[in-house]
C-alpha cells in the first residue's frame, strides 16, 4: 500500500477510534479546515520559477486540509495535509505537513509528539497559508526555497508553554528535538553534489546522487510579549548535523562509496513585531552557518564554510478592515564575510550571486473572512537566493517581478 495512503488511513482510524471511545459524534468533535491559493508570477530576465520570465507562470499554488480534535480536555490531536506546487517542486503531491498528539499539562507546560512545524521566526509555521502572511512572496532572505526542507518541520518532541511574568509581560516558548527529512531534490543536496564535483573535476572524478540523513536536530524559540501594547520580540536557535552518502566515480577504481556531513551550527533568527493601530512593522535578522565536509580516508575535508546572513524590514498599513498596503526591504548575503560576491566569482558565477536585495510594494485585499487577493511588485538586485531556476549562463543582476495571488480558506 502507498505509504502516504497508509499514513492517512492510520491517522483517520486513530481519530475515529479516540472519538468513539469518548462517546460523542464525529461531527461534534472533529474540526475540518483548509486553504487553497493560486498565484501568477511574471519576472523580467531571470526565472523566479520556470518560465516566469517568458510568459509568466501559474506554477505556484498550495492546497491544505487540516483536521483537529480535542480527545480529552488536555489531550488533542491534529494533522494537516499539504499539496503545493512551486515550479518543479511539489507538483501537488499530498504530504503530511504536520501531525501530532499534544498533551497540555497547564498553560505553562505542554508536550507535542509527532511531525511538528519548526517554530522559526515570525512566519515559518504557517508560511504556506497565503491569508496568514502579509505578502505573497515572503522575504527571501529568511523564507526562500533553498533551506526550506531543513526548517519546515521536525519529527520528534516539543515542549511548549506560556510563562506569565505579570508586569514584565509574558513569554511563549517552544523547545524541540528530533530529526528532519531531506528530500532528494533539496537545493542544498544539489549544491553539495556540485561542490564535491567541482573539487574532484581536476582529478577526473565525480559523484552521483547524494542522500542525506539527520544525526542531530534541536533548538528552541522564545517570544517576549512585552508590556508595551503591540510589541513582541523573539528569537529562534537551531542546530543540526546531517550525514550524506553518495558514490564516487574514479576513472581507474570505478565506483566507490563516499560520505560526508553537513553541519548547521549556531543558527539564530531574531525578530520583532510592533503593531500600532493600523500599522504593523516587522523585522527579522538571521545568521545561518553551513559547513560541508567530505570524509576521505577517515579524515573530514572541509568543502564549504559559509555564514549566510539576511535581514528585512516590512511595513503593513491597513485601511479600513479590508485593504492593506505593504512595503518590504530585504537583504541577503551568501557569506557574511563576503558582501562583494568574491566567493561566487571564485565558483565562476557573477559577483551578484553573492547577494540578493529586494525592494517590494504590495496591495492586499481581504474580500471577506475567506477570500484574499494580493498584488505586488518586487525589484531585485542579485541572485543569491533565487538562483534555483535561472539559466546560469544568461542572468541579469537587476530584475523585477509581478505577483498576483488569490487564496481561499475555511
Amino acid at each position: 500500500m502507498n505509504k502516504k495512503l497508509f499514513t492517512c488511513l492510520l491517522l483517520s482510524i486513530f481519530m475515529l477510534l479516540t472519538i468513539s471511545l469518548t462517546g460523542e459524534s464525529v461531527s461534534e468533535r472533529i474540526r475540518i479546515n483548509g486553504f487553497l491559493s493560486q498565484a501568477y508570477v511574471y519576472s523580467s530576465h531571470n526565472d523566479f520559477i520556470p518560465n516566469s520570465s517568458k510568459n509568466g507562470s501559474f506554477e505556484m499554488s498550495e492546497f491544505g486540509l487540516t483536521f483537529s480534535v480535542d480527545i480529552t480536555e488536555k489531550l488533542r490531536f491534529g494533522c494537516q495535509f499539504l499539496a503545493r506546487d512551486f515550479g518543479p517542486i511539489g507538483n501537488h503531491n499530498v504530504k503530511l505537513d504536520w501531525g501530532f498528539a499534544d498533551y497540555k499539562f497547564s498553560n505553562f507546560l505542554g508536550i507535542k509528539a509527532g511531525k511538528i512545524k519548526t517554530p522559526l521566526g515570525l512566519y515559518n509555521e504557517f508560511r504556506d497559508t497565503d491569508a496568514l502572511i502579509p505578502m505573497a512572496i515572503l522575504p527571501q532572505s529568511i523564507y526562500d526555497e533553498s533551506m526550506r526542507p531543513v526548517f519546515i518541520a521536525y519529527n520528534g518532541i516539543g515542549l511548549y508553554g506560556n510563562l506569565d511574568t505579570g508586569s514584565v509581560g509574558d513569554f511563549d516558548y517552544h523547545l524541540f528535538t528530533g530529526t528532519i527529512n531531506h528530500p532528494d531534490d533539496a537545493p542544498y543536496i544539489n549544491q553539495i553534489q556540485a561542490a564535491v564535483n567541482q573539487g574532484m573535476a581536476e582529478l577526473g572524478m565525480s559523484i552521483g546522487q547524494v542522500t542525506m540523513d539527520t544525526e542531530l536536530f534541536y533548538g528552541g524559540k522564545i517570544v517576549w510579549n512585552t508590556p508595551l501594547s503591540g510589541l513582541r520580540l523573539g528569537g529562534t536557535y537551531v542546530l543540526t548535523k546531517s550525514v550524506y552518502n553518495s558514490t564516487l566515480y574514479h576513472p581507474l577504481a570505478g565506483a566507490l562509496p563516499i560520505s560526508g556531513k553537513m553541519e548547521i551550527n549556531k543558527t539564530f533568527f531574531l525578530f520583532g513585531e510592533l503593531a500600532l493601530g493600523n500599522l504593523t512593522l516587522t523585522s527579522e535578522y538571521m545568521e545561518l552557518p553551513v559547513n560541508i565536509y567530505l570524509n576521505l580516508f577517515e579524515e573530514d575535508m572541509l568543502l564549504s564554510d559559509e555564514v549566510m546572513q539576511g535581514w528585512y524590514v516590512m511595513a503593513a498599513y491597513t485601511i479600513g478592515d479590508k485593504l492593506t498596503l505593504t512595503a518590504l526591504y530585504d537583504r541577503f548575503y551568501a557569506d557574511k564575510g563576503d558582501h562583494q560576491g568574491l566567493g561566487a566569482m571564485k565558483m565562476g558565477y557573477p559577483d551578484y550571486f553573492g547577494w540578493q536585495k529586494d525592494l517590494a510594494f504590495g496591495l492586499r485585499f481581504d474580500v471577506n473572512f475567506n477570500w484574499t487577493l494580493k498584488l505586488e511588485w518586487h525589484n531585485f538586485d542579485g541572485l543569491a537566493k533565487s538562483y534555483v531556476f535561472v539559466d546560469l549562463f544568461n542572468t541579469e543582476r537587476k530584475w523585477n517581478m509581478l505577483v498576483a495571488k488569490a487564496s481561499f480558506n475555511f
Partner: protein
Amino acid sequence: MKNINTLMISLLLLSLSSLCLAGDYVLLINPVNPAESISRDDLTDILLGKKTTWADGQKIKIAVYKKGEAHRALLKDTVKKSPMQFSLYWKKILFSGSGTPIQIVNNEQEMIDFIIKNPTAIGYIAAAGKIEQLKVIQVIE
C-alpha cells in the same frame, strides 16, 4: 457663560456615549460557575487562547461571533484587534497546529445554547440582549 454650559453639556454627552460604546456587550457564564468577575487581562488572555483554565482548574470553553457590534466592542475592549485581525490570529493558531480553533457561533441564541450546554463556558451577547438562564460576569480592571 452660555458657551461654558454648552461645552459642559457636550462633554457630558460625549462621556455618556463613550460609556455606552464600552458597554456594548455583556459577558455571560453558566450559572454553576462560581466566578463573579474577571479581570480585563484574563479576559484578553482567554480570547487569545493563552489562559485556558478557570481558577479551579476546569477548562475554559469560549465561543465568539465572526462579526457584529457586540463582537467588535469586546475585541476593541480587550485584545485591541478588529474582527478580521482576530480571525487571522486564530487561523495562525489553527493552520500552524498550535491549537484547536476557537468555537464560532452564528447568533445570540447559539451563544446562549453553548453556555447552557457547557458548565465551564464563557460568552457574550449585546447589552440589550436577553440574559435569562445565564449568569452575568463583570469585567474588572
